[in-house]
Every structure is written in C-alpha cells, then in structure tokens.
C-alpha cells in the first residue's frame, strides 16, 4: 500500500465522526472548566441556580471520559485502517460501536444537565444519581467493547493473511491498548451492573461501598494508561517519520507496551491509600506494582531522545546537543507532542509522589492531584492529541496541512502550554498548602489558610482563561481544517525501521502468554484483599439522593 495515500474514504468518515464528538466535547467541557475557575475566585456566582458541582460533573465526565474515549477510538480506527486494513463488516461494527457510545453519552449528559446526577465522574456510592446516568455509562462501556473486538478482529485477520510477518507496530499497540481497556472496564462494568443499577432502581436496599470503590479503582488507574498509550503510539510510531528519522527499536517499543499491559491494572489500591477496610500490607504491594509502571515510561524516554539525537546527527549535527536545535520546532506536528513529552517529566515525578505509601498523606484529595492530571492528561496527552489532529483531520477530510494550519497550531500550542503552566502550577502549590480538590469557593469560616488558597485560585482563573482561548483557537483550527483548508492529499506519517534493524523477538506476539501473565498479576494483587473486603464487610449503605439535590 502506498504510505502517502490518505485513508479509504469510508474509514475516514468513521474516524471523523469520532473527531466531531471529541472536539464538541472539548468546547463544552472546557467552558465548564473556565466557569469553575471563575466560581472559585469567589467573585462570580453561576446564573439560573446552576450548581458548581453540576458543572464539575459535566467537566469531568465530558473531558475525562467522552473526549478521550471518542478521540482514542477514532484515532485507533484510523491507525488500524492504515496498517492492517478494515473490511466492510468491521466498519459496520465500528459504526455500531460509535452509535452505542453516543447514545450512552447523550443519556448521561441529559441526566447531568437536569441536575439529577451531580456525582462527579467517579460517582462514589452511596451518593445516588438517577438510574439513567448509570445506564448511560454502561452503554458507553459496551460500545467501546464492540470497538475493542473490531480492533482484535482486524489484527487477527491480518495475521491469518500474513502468517510469517510480524504485525505492524501501530496495530500491535492499538490491540495492547484495547486489551488493557477491556480487562480494566470489566471492573467498572461489574460495579455498575451488579451494584449501582439494582441499588439505584431500588431493587436492593444497600450497597457495599468498599467493593464498589475497589472495582472502580481497578478500572480507574488503567484508564489513565488507556489515555496515555495513544500518545505513546504517536511518539513511537509517528514522530520519527515527522522529524525525518527512523524507529529507534521496534522490539523495545513493543516491550514497553507489554509492560504497560502487565503493570497498569494491579495497582488500583494506590488511589485508596487513605481508606479504611484495606489491609496496609496489600496497599504496599500495589504501591510496588505501581512503581513498576514507571519502567516502560523510562524506556520510552530513552527511545524518544535516541530518535531525536540520531535524526539530528543524520542531518550532520556533530556537537553534543546540536541535534536538539536541528529538530523541526516550527512543525506543529512535532512541537505539540514534544511539549507534551517534556511536561511528562514533572508529571511522572508527581505521579510517583501520589502513589507513595506515606507521601500520599500530604497530597491526597488536595488540589495537587488536580494539578497532576492537568499535567499528565490535559498537557501530555491532549497536546499530543492536538499534534495528531493537525495532520489527521486533513487526512480525513482530503485537505492539506497548510502554512496557516501550522501557524494556528503553533500559537495554540504556546497558549495551551502557558495556560496549563499557570493553572497546573498554582494547583500544585495550593495543594501542598492543603487546599482541597473538588470544592466550590469557601472561606472555611474565615480561616487564614483559606485566604492563602484563594490567592492561588485567582491564578487558576487566569490560567483557565488562557486555556479557554486555547480551546477557541483549537475549535477554529478544527473547523478550518475540516471545511476551508486547501484540498489535496495529506501524508499519514507512519515511521519505519532502519534497514538493518534488529529482528523483533517473536515472543512479543504471544498474546496468550502476556494476557496470561497479566491475569496472574491481577489475581495476585486482588484476590486475597478482595476476599478480606467481603468477609470483613460492614452493613451496606442505603442510597443518598438529597446531598446532591436529586430528590
């Protein structure tokens, strides 16, 4: 297949539908974020009796769950179509997945907007939302499962047709990411279907809180790798092409993804370090496993900088750091993901702090955590997604990435980085001073500490406003790329290996082996503590609707 031809038109439409949902989500979710930072200055109150926690729920659900899931699944369909192809049947199921997810999203959104589901995106029991909220979430997950199986089938079929070849790197990565997603969502599906739905419908009286939280966080941490790995796909498999280099090591890239499959799931307790009911020994075990997830990120950091250096050296740079200047800083397809990558250095370090057995006491549920995931998700991941969009949208719409798109993109990247630096930075500092996350404006009875926090909340409003300008710029660019950029065929940049590259060990494609080890690790980290949790369980909790204004 000619690597420069754009995607088949029908496949492009499927991905583009996902992009529309993702970008509309960005606009709505971003607006909610802006309003939140305003409310937290204490100077502005929301009109029409809209509650702070209602917009906080919209912000979390629509950005963390809808934007990400739709962008990722759409992007992954494009990668699969490009590398292993998509049959008519697979495309049909891809559309079924899309409509199921959209239906679920709409149902959930309506309940939140009606104020019947102000439970934030973590929906912790025993706060009880309207049952339709939980049904909506179920549809989103079930739709994504259909997409999982489409991707699995695509690779399976390709392997059958090409029995002796190793699978294309990006297709391999997509399948790993969907395997993580599928295994992880089993947890959230279990709690929603077995616990939340019957309980919110009044079919059962009580819910076991700790079981629901444990199942939620079994899903909740792998979720962040589901966001991160598509960014890694772009870094490993696309950026080398953009900078005129080659993939550093195909084998190493696959190894990193396999390590994510193994270590991303058995780690949920590090979100529950300050909870009662879980034995501290098992908390520590999962802290150790959490730290293991840093290893594939270290591998990735090395590979990426090796690619940058060798690409620069290939252009004749000789001095120790001369290659750094030789990188295409003026190409937004490189600049945006690169800034994302750089942000991941402090972001990852902050993550280790959060996951540490005792350091967690200092930052748990403070706004430090919010600052942390605005660096990881909202900077590293989203800037990479933006960087992808600048070439992917033109590919999908049959247009060119022109100088204007590039200029807008560079402006957007700078605005976004600046806004995030101010907002996330002030969140980190305020968090260390003890300011809580997920809280509306409060002076806490005139406490001196709260006065200090409010200063940083002003900084967050400034950062938030800059970010919203970034979103408007991004929306404009999205419309420009979709409707007005010059027509033509834009390159779908897929990197290649060196001609004399080492062969990749075939063991990396032994799916049974890796999924088997993943299951064993999960069983090791969860079986005994889970039995403990059930055997040592207190009476369950009835639903509470009034605290969220849903009664």
């Amino acid at each position: 297949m000619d690597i420069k031809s754009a995607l088949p038109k029908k496949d492009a439409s499927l991905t583009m539908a996902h992009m529309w949902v993702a970008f509309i989500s960005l606009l709505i979710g971003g607006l909610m974020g802006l309003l939140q930072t305003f409310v937290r200055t204490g100077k502005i109150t929301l009109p029409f009796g809209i509650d702070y926690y209602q917009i906080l729920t919209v912000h979390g659900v629509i950005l963390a769950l809808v934007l990400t899931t739709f962008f990722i699944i759409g992007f992954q369909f494009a990668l699969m179509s490009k590398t292993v192809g998509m049959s008519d049947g697979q495309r049909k199921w891809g559309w079924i997945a899309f409509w199921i997810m959209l239906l679920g999203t709409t149902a959930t959104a309506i309940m939140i907007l009606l104020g019947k589901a102000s439970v934030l995106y973590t929906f912790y029991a025993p706060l009880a939302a309207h049952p339709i909220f939980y049904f909506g979430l179920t549809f989103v997950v079930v739709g994504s499962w259909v997409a999982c199986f489409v991707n699995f089938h695509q690779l399976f079929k390709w392997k059958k047709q090409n029995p002796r070849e190793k699978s294309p790197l990006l297709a391999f990565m997509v399948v790993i990411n969907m395997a993580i997603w599928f295994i992880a969502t089993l947890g959230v599906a279990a709690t929603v279907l077995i616990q939340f739905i019957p309980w919110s419908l009044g079919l059962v009286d009580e819910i076991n809180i700790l079981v629901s939280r444990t199942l939620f966080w079994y899903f909740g941490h792998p979720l962040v790798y589901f966001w991160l790995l598509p960014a890694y796909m772009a870094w490993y498999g696309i950026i080398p092409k953009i900078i005129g280099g080659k993939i550093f090591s195909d084998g190493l890239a696959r190894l990193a993804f396999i390590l994510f499959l193994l270590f991303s799931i058995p780690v949920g307790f590090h979100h529950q370090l300050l909870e009662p009911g879980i034995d501290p020994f098992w908390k520590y075990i999962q802290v150790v496993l959490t730290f293991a997830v840093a290893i594939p990120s270290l591998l990735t950091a090395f590979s990426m900088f090796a690619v940058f250096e060798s690409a620069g050296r290939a252009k004749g740079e000789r001095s120790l750091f001369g290659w750094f200047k030789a990188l295409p800083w003026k190409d937004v397809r490189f600049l945006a993901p690169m800034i994302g990558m750089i942000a991941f250095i402090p972001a990852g370090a902050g993550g280790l702090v959060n996951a540490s057995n005792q350091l967690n006491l200092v930052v748990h549920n403070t706004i430090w955590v919010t600052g942390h995931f605005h660096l990881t998700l909202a900077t590293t991941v989203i800037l990479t997604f933006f960087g992808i969009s600048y070439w992917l949208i033109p590919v999908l719409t049959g247009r060119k990435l022109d100088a204007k798109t590039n200029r807008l993109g560079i402006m957007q990247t700078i605005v976004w980085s600046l806004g995030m630096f101010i907002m996330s930075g002030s969140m980190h500092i305020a968090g260390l001073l003890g300011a809580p996350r997920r809280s509306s404006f409060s002076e806490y009875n005139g406490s001196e500490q709260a006065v200090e926090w409010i200063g940083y909340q002003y900084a967050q409003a400034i950062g938030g406003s800059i970010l919203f300008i970034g979103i408007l710029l991004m929306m404009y660019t999205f419309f420009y790329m979709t409707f007005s950029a010059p027509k033509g065929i834009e390159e779908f940049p897929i990197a290649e290996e060196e001609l004399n590259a080492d062969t990749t060990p075939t063991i990396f494609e032994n799916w049974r082996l890796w999924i088997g080890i993943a299951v064993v690790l999960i069983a090791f980290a969860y079986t005994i503590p889970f039995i403990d949790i059930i055997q040592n369980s207190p009476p369950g909790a009835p639903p509470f609707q009034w605290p969220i204004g849903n009664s």
Partner: protein
Amino acid sequence: MHLHKYEKIWMFIGGGSLLAFLIVLGVGAFLQGTQPPSCLTTIDPTNVEAHESFKQENLGLQEMDDKSYVVNVVASAFNYDFGTDEDGAPVKNIRIPVGSKVLFQGTTKDVIHGFELAGTNANMMLEPGYINTVEVTLDNPGTYTLVCNEYCGTGHHFMTASVEVYEE
C-alpha cells in the same frame, strides 16, 4: 533484541532509583510503623452511637495521659460532630497543647467524607461502615483548618472546623 549500552545504564539508574524509593517507603511502613490510615474496624453506619467512641458524650477531645489525646468525630453531610461544650453549643474549635500526640478517630453516618487537617499529616477518608484513624504529633503552634476533601454533596465546601495548637 539488542539493548544499547547507554540504555542499559539508563535503565539501571532509573530502576535502581525506583527500588531505593520503594525500600525507603517499605522501611517506613514495616519497620517504623508509619502506615497509611487503614483501620479495619467496621461499624453499623445507621447506628454509629452504638459504638463506645461515638456516643454523644465521648465525641471531641479526650485526654488519655500526659500529652496524648484522642479526638472522636462523626461526619455527616455537611457537618463534623465533635460533641457540645458546657453551654450546649456544638464544638467547632478544638484546643490542644503543642507537642501532643493526637489520634483522630472518625466515622460517617451517611456518605463518604474526607478528613484533612490542612497543614498537618492528618488526612484520611471516612466511609460508611468503617472507622478510620490517623495519628499525628502536633509540634507547631497555630490554627489548622479542618476540611472535607472528598465530595459529599452540594454543601461539601461548608464542612469545616479548626484545631488550635497552643503553647502552654
């Protein structure tokens, strides 16, 4: 698969630092006993008063022996119950002499709440059905704000109290 020499060095340093960090955390947890709040005691969330520590008269500050205190609290949306003072008014400020060792012991009657004494290491989750505890030594005088740091409903940010650490 070939691993570059520099890559081996990089992974050795990176992996080694992670391991060193984990050993420090492990020694702190298992040899020095600084475990995260993990009280495994259960309680009936609809009848917390049945438990000795959470009877109305036992809420708030309890002096154990010299420089050692227990503070019992029952959280509910949107209030921390530390009992009442001599005048029958709800206690919203707890005074503790500097250098005291304080065990905060809490539970909740309804939904999940946070318990964070900002500026100290007292931070834990209060979940229906469980008692949770956290122990700190308050070495610095000052007034510390107690905040609920887990979303518990629309009045969540009004849940507060304070602890004053005074010099004798």
